[in-house]
């Protein structure tokens, strides 16, 4: 319950205001009322006290003559009469010892009152009783023996010259206080008055609180709640998209001004939106146009692509046909020439024989060229995908050398392999590696005259492997070193020795090595020999 109302308080401005104003009002009024009532009480009591003192003095004076003339029965009758007065509970005169010598009720005469009693405490609290009292001390309020609220007045009867000089010589001169007159006034009327007063104040308090609360509430509703609601409504309408709604407040206070500036804001929002929409349209058109252009460009690209592919296919086709045709014809040429040379041909002159040999040699080279070119194209194309696997280098080299030995007529060339037995396997494409070293070793063999030496060695470094193929052959001239890897390039030096070659071998080697992310390098000295170095990266998990 509390939680719900607390929640309502948080969300409702009017409720908040009313609650807090109400609380302050109640507190303020409460304090004022409280203070007021107490002040009133105080004043009234003071008044009563003064009256009471006056009354006791009056009573004292009224019985003084009779006391002086020791007409105690008169005193008693006076007191009895006074005692009948409404509001006076009791009037008693005590002598020094504390016994009642006269009272409004005859039955009390002779009663002894203890000094220790509450009623006597004002003077008799200390060991030596007080000799005089201020007006306030003379009176005190308490509950009487009968249970009613009373105001008690103590009026000490002082020893005056008239007394100790009187005819009866009852009281000695030295005695300061002859006795005490004790009057009890009922506070019932007073209490009733106070009670009524309090009730009146309370009622007027409640009434004024309600008045203020209700009127405050209404005023707040009218000047705060209603305009704010209108404002809220307006903002919600605008938030939901209706930018033509205007709040049009009639007030010119802060809320009214807020509503007006809100209206201004909606106007500018509306304008902005319209502007944006215009821009949007423009952009859309631009985009449309750009897209059209792109589509056109794309189409043109597609057409160009298609043409390129067609051309590529035509080229491949062309190459294939040329290759096939060439090979067919060359096969016949070579076989014929071969046959002539195989069979007895004594009728041919040496020169004729040499010419036929040359023709046969050249047709062989031509066929090799076709093979090499086919290989190179294959390796360069995407179909030449490499299948990486661990390859035992020593085994590879041994096989290649065996093939070379089988085909070569040069028997006086020493081939040394220096590959340590614990040399790691090379991670590469097996057939690719085969081609690389076949080419390099065939070259070494081709370009080295007998007697000669070919050396194969391999070295392991931290991140890569180096394989060297050295020969003691004809060497390569400095100006040719960079060109020998070019397609179809044959150095003048090589040609001068009449050594056949296609010009594609090293191009194939370079293509394959670089496809393995490696490098091919060459060092050479004309007439002394050459060293080709293949550098291949180690596989990732081989790197030390």
């Amino acid at each position, binding site marked *: 319950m509390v939680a719900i109302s607390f929640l309502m308080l948080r969300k409702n401005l009017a409720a908040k205001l009313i609650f807090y104003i109400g609380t302050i009002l109640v507190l303020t009024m409460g304090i004022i009322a409280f203070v007021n009532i107490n002040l009133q009480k105080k004043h009234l009591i003071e008044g009563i006290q003064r009256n009471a003192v006056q009354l006791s003095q009056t009573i004292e004076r009224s019985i003084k003559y009779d006391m002086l003339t020791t007409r105690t029965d008169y005193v008693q009758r006076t007191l009895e009469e006074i005692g009948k007065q409404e509001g006076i509970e009791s009037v008693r005169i005590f002598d020094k010892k504390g016994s009642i010598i006269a009272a409004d009720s005859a039955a009390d005469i002779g009663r002894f009152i203890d000094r220790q009693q509450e009623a006597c405490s004002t003077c008799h609290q200390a060991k030596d009783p007080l000799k005089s009292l201020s007006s306030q001390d003379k009176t005190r309020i308490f509950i009487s023996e009968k249970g009613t609220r009373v105001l008690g007045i103590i009026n000490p009867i002082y020893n005056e010259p008239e007394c100790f000089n009187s005819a009866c010589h009852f009281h000695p001169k030295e005695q300061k206080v002859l006795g005490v007159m004790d009057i009890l006034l009922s506070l019932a009327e007073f209490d009733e008055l106070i009670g009524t007063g309090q009730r009146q104040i309370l009622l007027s308090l409640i009434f004024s609180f309600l008045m203020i609360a209700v009127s405050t509430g209404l005023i707040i509703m009218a000047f705060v709640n209603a305009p704010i609601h209108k404002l809220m409504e307006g903002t919600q309408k605008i938030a939901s998209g209706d930018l033509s709604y205007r709040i049009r407040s009639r007030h010119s206070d802060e809320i009214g001004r807020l509503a007006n500036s809100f209206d201004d804001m909606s106007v500018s929002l509306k304008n902005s939106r319209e502007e944006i929409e215009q821009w949007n349209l423009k952009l859309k058109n631009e985009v449309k146009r750009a897209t059209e252009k792109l589509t056109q460009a794309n189409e043109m690209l597609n057409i160009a692509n298609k043409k390129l592919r067609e051309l590529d296919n035509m080229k491949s086709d062309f190459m294939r046909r040329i290759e*096939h045709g060439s*090979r*067919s014809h*060359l*096969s*016949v040429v*070579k*076989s*014929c020439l*071969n*046959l002539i040379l*195989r*069979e007895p041909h004594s009728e041919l002159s040496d020169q004729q024989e040499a010419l036929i040999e040359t023709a046969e040699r050249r047709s062989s080279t031509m*066929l090799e060229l076709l*093979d090499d070119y*086919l290989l190179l194209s*294959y390796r360069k194309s995407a*179909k030449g995908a490499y299948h990486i696997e661990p390859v035992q280098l020593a085994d590879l080299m041994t096989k290649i050398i065996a093939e070379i030995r089988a085909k070569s007529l040069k028997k006086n060339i020493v081939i040394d392999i220096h590959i340590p037995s614990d040399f790691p396997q090379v991670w590469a494409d097996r*057939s690719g590696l085969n081609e690389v070293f076949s080419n390099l070793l065939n070259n070494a063999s081709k370009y080295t005259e007998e007697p000669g030496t070919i050396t194969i060695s391999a070295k392991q470094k931290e991140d890569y492997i180096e394989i060297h193929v050295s020969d003691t052959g004809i060497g390569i001239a400095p100006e040719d070193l960079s060109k020998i890897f070019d397609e179809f390039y044959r150095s003048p030096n090589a040609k001068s020795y009449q050594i056949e070659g296609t010009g594609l071998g090293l191009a194939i080697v370079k293509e394959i090595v670089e496809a393995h992310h490696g490098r091919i390098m060459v060092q050479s000295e004309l007439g002394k020999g050459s060293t080709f170095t293949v550098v291949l990266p180690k596989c990732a998990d081989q790197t030390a």
Partner: protein
Amino acid sequence: MKMSKPGAKILVIDDDPDFRKVISLTLESKSYNIVTARNPLEAREKLLAEKPDLILLDIMMDSIFDGYSLCHEIKTSEKFHELKNTPIIFISAVKEKAGSRLAFNPAEQGLVGPDDYIDKPPQPEDLFDRIERLLNRIRR
């Protein structure tokens, strides 16, 4: 290598007459008997008529497929039942060596392939070796 069977009959199938001529001369120099055919059609006739001991087949006639299907036919069909053990060597102008990735793989097509391959033009010594090896094999 000593000739196992002097006068063995070899059928050469090739569409190039000059090539047929020169191969025949080359082989005759080694005392083989040569019969020739121009194309698979003629080949089929000659096969039954001549019953050769070995077949040399150029597979670049018209289409590779012709050569392979003829080979398959000779080795598996009822018609050439008598010749099913006759060794066949393909002569190819394209590197058809086993292991070459340019090669057409007959097994992939469900065809029975030849007993050997040789490049065109064949080195005479190489050709003689292979022929002898295959002829010897049959003897056993």
